[in-house]
């Protein structure tokens, strides 16, 4: 069974990053939550990549996607137990977005490691994507917090605040505006779709 065709992973970096936002956007209500979600995604992406590299050649083709997902979700469940004991308030705030990180496209992309020859190059590429994702998510979360409450982590930034940016609709509008800005400033960014992620 092939869930992802190999062309699927040839999409440009900006599309992969946008798709990676899908499971995390709802949890990025403020700067610190967004930072936590980005870090969690980065760590599980690296962990899934390392496990996949270690077991290269052992896992059958059909089992690659479920294997990666189950490794990831086990790690995330363990992290949930850790939070349950040491930081229950963070667990309440992030809620279902911790287990949802297992369906992140960056994690699923690690199945590519089973196929490629140059493993270290591919692994570094995925870590770099994860770092970019972390910055993007933290930026979006920070922007949302700043516009909705007028301050970031207690530091006042704006004289006025628009509370509607704190709602889900506000987040979608922020993301749309940001993407329009990216398109206006660097139109060539999304044209490297055929060339793949560099």
């Amino acid at each position: 069974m092939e869930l992802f065709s190999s062309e699927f992973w040839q999409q440009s970096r900006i599309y992969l990053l946008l798709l990676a936002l899908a499971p995390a956007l709802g949890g990025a209500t403020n700067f610190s939550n967004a930072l936590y979600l980005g870090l969690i995604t980065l760590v599980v992406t690296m962990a899934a990549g390392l496990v996949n590299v270690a077991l290269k050649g052992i896992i059958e083709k059909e089992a690659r996607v479920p294997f990666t997902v189950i490794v990831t979700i086990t790690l995330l469940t363990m992290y949930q137990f850790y939070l349950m004991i040491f930081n229950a308030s963070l667990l309440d705030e992030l809620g279902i977005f911790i287990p949802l990180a297992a369906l992140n496209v960056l994690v699923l992309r690690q199945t590519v490691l089973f196929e490629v020859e140059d493993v270290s190059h591919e692994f570094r590429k995925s870590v770099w994507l994860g770092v970019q994702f972390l910055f993007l998510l933290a930026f979006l979360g920070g922007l949302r917090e700043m516009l909705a409450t007028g301050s970031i982590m207690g530091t006042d930034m704006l004289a006025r605040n628009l509370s509607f940016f704190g709602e889900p609709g506000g987040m979608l509008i922020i993301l749309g505006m940001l993407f329009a800005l990216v398109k206006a400033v660097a139109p060539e960014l999304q044209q490297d779709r055929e060339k793949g992620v560099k």
Partner: protein
Amino acid sequence: MLDLLYLLLGGVLWNNIILTQLLGLSPFLVERKSSVEDVWGMGMMTTALMTASAFVAFLIYDVILEPLALEFLENIILILIVFLLVILFQQYKKGEAREKRWHFYLPDVFMNTAVFGILLLNMTEWETVIEAIVGAAGFGLGFAVLLVIIEAINSRVDKLPLPEWLRGIPIQLITLGILALAVSGFSGI
């Protein structure tokens, strides 16, 4: 009976999983050429997947996990159920003529965080099997209706004299944001 109707309508309007939780956004973040029929088919497929997984997950949760105090395995079991059902759906769809197009949508349907998300959110909320089925069908219908609305709006927006940098995903996301604000008006009902 009225409760079930409330559950179904809530999934479509004021509890819409995309507009209130921002789950299942992936179909809106990819630019592609499609028609209203295509997205309706994809929405119906997701609805069927949600309903089936809610049914199976509720039974397993109620019969196996809860009596044996194994609730901590919830995440792993739920994601396995979703995955197995996606495989079953794929086998079932294999013979059809539109298989190629369906294959194109498959990553979207599997990565659709809404399917896994509604299970995680509602596993302890639903009290009976009927409630689970109706509730999941409501969330699925909400997703399908939203896909069709956005597709229909897009086909009109394409004809407008917009600047190039606003076309495609940016205007799609802004439209979705405005829709989300409109739907939040229902939440007082």
